[in-house]
């Protein structure tokens, strides 16, 4: 499995909690940016990929023409004949019929929509530019355009969110044709307006965990499988592109601030729009080249995020000496002894009760 990621760092407006690399406005640069991405793509000629994800930012801001240009460019640079999943992310206000039609025509088969909440008060406080009817419309439009694999993102722990408001959001979403839901706990990231001025109606950590637990339980009753710490899918509808990240697979990232993992080396493109536009092929910076034991530990840490499959020490992507695997097993067994992990055969998993406190366990597994 190899994945291809394209980062679209443009937004209509920056949400108050967001620390991803994106610039508000500047849509006039979209044309040039897509050209730059295609130039960067030609730096890795002839490579083939099984999954594609166009993320952001707000990729739906590309509009029909730029999306078509991007897809044509990517097909010109790479071998995409083996593509099994091609996702584009969008925000409700820019997911239009025209955009969806072009997306479908150029091979996109999965749409991920940033709903975040269906409570207008919560949306406003978070700095979202759409309201809840828009989100519902967008999901319906997507289905009408012929997509049968639709995901929505929601956030628990938004300012003003309560058990009942989250309940309403979930119930409304359950009535829509969704195959996948990402449920993220709001985290207050340095440098964001939320960090600078903590909203006073922000649910505390304990409340957030409570909200998440309720959401997880509800979605499972509705037939969704809790397959990753923050992700739920109907059977067979897990996000293959993301699964590749969590299984320690390889991927190439294009665009400003995009990350890549190739031949055991992790890279990241510089997070500057101007720099990227000037030198698309010079943006890539080597972040780290992991030693075998680090690589192995990292794979275990990532795989443990997968709550259903976990990490099977007999079946690791990074094939390494038994000595290193033995050391890893020792650390994993240490966590099993304290009931922080469960073990079945050679397979270790996070118990559902340990999801919200997994950092400590993952840190122990790392080294």
């Amino acid at each position, binding site marked *: 499995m190899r994945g291809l*990621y394209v*980062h679209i760092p443009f937004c209509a407006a920056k949400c108050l909690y967001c620390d*991803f690399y994106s610039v508000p406005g500047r849509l006039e640069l979209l044309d040039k940016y897509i050209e730059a991405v295609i130039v960067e793509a030609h730096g890795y000629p002839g490579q083939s990929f099984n999954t594609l994800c166009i*993320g952001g930012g707000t990729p739906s801001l590309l509009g029909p023409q730029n999306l078509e240009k991007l897809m044509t460019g990517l097909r010109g640079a790479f071998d995409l004949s083996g593509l099994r999943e091609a996702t584009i992310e969008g925000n409700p206000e820019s997911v239009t019929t025209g955009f969806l039609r072009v997306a479908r025509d150029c091979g996109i088969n999965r749409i991920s929509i940033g709903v975040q909440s269906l409570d207008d008060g919560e949306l406003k406080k978070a700095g979202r530019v759409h309201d809840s009817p828009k989100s519902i419309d967008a999901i319906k439009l997507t289905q009408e355009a012929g997509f049968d694999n639709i995901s929505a993102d929601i956030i628990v722990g938004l300012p003003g969110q309560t058990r009942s408001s989250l309940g309403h959001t979930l119930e409304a979403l359950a009535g829509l044709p969704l195959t996948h839901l990402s449920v*993220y*706990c709001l*985290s207050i990231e340095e440098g964001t307006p939320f960090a600078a001025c903590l909203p006073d109606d922000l649910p505390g*950590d*304990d409340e*957030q*965990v409570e909200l998440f637990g309720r959401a997880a339980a509800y979605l499972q009753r509705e037939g969704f499988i809790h397959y990753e*710490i*923050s992700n739920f899918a109907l059977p067979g509808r897990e996000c293959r592109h*993301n699964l590749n*990240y*969590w299984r320690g697979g390889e*991927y190439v*990232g294009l665009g400003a601030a*995009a*990350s*890549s*993992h190739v031949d055991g080396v*992790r890279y*990241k493109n510089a997070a500057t729009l101007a720099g990227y536009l000037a030198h698309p092929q010079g943006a890539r910076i080597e*972040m*780290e080249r992991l030693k075998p034991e680090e690589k192995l530990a*990292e794979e275990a*840490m*990532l795989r443990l*995020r997968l709550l259903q499959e976990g990490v099977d020490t007999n079946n690791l992507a990074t094939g390494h000496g038994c000595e290193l695997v033995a050391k890893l097993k020792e650390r994993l067994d240490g966590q099993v002894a*304290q009931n*922080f992990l469960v073990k079945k055969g050679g397979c270790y998993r996070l118990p559902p009760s340990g*999801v*919200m*406190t*997994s*950092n*400590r366990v*993952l*840190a*122990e597994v*790392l*080294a």
Partner: protein
Amino acid sequence: MKNIRNFCIIAHIDHGKSTLADRILEITGLVRKASMEQMLDNMDLERERGITIKAKSVRIPYHSESGEEYILNLIDTPGHVDFNYEVSRSLNACDGAVLLVDATQGVEAQTIANANLALDAGLKIIPVINKIDLPGAMVDDCSLQLYSMLGLRIEDILLVSAKDGTGVPALLEAIVDRVPPPAGSAGEPLKCLIFDSFYDAYRGVIPHIRVFSGCVEPGDKIMLKSTEKIFEVEDVGYFSLGLAQSSALQAGDVGYIVALIRNAGEIHVGDTVVSADHPEVPAIPGFRMSQSMVYCGIYPIVTSDYAKLGAALEKFKLNDSSVVYEKENSAALGYGYRIGFLGMLHMEIALERLKREYEQDIIATMPSVIYKVFCTDGDILMLDNPSKFPAEGRIDHIEEPIIRARIIVPSDYVGPCMELAEAKRSTLVGIEHPDDRRAILIYDLPLAEMITDFYDRLKSVSRGYASMDYKLNGYRAGDLVKVDILVNNGMVDALSYISPRDNAAVKGKALIYKLSKVIPRHLFKIPLQAAIGSQVIARADIYPMRKDVIAKCYGGDITRKRKLLEKQKEGKKKMKMVGFVEVPQEAFLSLMKIEE
């Protein structure tokens, strides 16, 4: 010899002793202004706290107004109540003392304590009022205080500004005129006083001495009176800005002796050095081993660093022979050391130096005094470690060390200071009124009360105006109990402490509350308890942590996520494992001072 003057400067903390020493070095031409930044205090920590911890001295050639050449030996003295014994030894090396008083502050507790030590040592005192350049200077008031509180004559008082040098030349002349030249003769057998020492990696422990009689030169055999050990002198010399070698030291001189003394434990401040040919020469009276007043346990954060800590302590002891230590073993914290200090300030400085200069990651347990435990079977145990106390049934009664404190306080703050002292199980011995604006409160109180936060609180209730001096004044029976701390249902023996029965519960609650705030939440619930025997007197629970998760792990930036986890793991290494509980250094630190 008649042209030598051995003197020191004594003062309350912050009254300008170091500045005056700097100005003297500069005006006599020994140091140029630019190269001098408070020459005599050269440890970082001393600079930060503005005090002198280790005494140092310097030989200053002085060309007097009469045209004669003099040698002024300025012997620096430590300026804190913890180091009283060291002060008295330094004073014994002098013939005169400059008593410095800050014109804006007046006579303070340590001014009196140090002046009395100097008078006891038979020193000629030159009273000096400093900081006369400041707008708040109260020269007349200070003069009256020096007269009424110390009996010093007003016409003898000199006025200086150590900062700008005003009056310092006159002070130098006064030192020459008023301080008597050293007595004793070079023809008699050797007799020297050790008043300080330092450690040199190549030449061993180098004692600082004052020669009272006789002469010492390289090749001589010397004997230390306290141990009767004999060493051969390799080298002698004076203190200039560094060490200045000389052919010999004789009666009246102040200098150093190199004799390849490898073990810092051999050299004790106050000991007498005589010639091995004349072992019958009597010791200079007043010698005692430095006495530890306060003890605490120290443990490496990581158990396997125990050997490194031992090596660091060994080196540390070479520089500061007043610390004593022995191995200690705690069921909860593993292997560590029990260390004795001269007082609280000494403890704080020593622990800080171990961390900074010796790079030790350590935790320290609550300080304790030495208790006298009378057992039912007639045994009397002197115990500095509460965890070593016998079972309650075996204890007949406990006595604790008492200090006599002299607190000088402006009349306006007498009330709050008395209130504070009374809350600390004290007995009022007397009140003196040296003038109409100040009072001297004399209290007997347990040393254990003093070492928690008494001094800090005294400063705060008097807005910084009160000053204090104390000395040990015997033992007194107290209604004391041992309080144990349990973390996650396991007793942490090293955290046990002795408390008066009356306020054991209040103090226990304060301590447990503090612990509950500094121990991070874990994945399980952690009960914290304080108990006397099996009776729990305070309890708090640390509820399990509920959220500690990286929710968003997509977009491929794995490096950043992994680093986050690695950082978390790194933070954990700074904590001490107590059973399954990770206890941060701050938790131990916060226990050192408990407000009720």
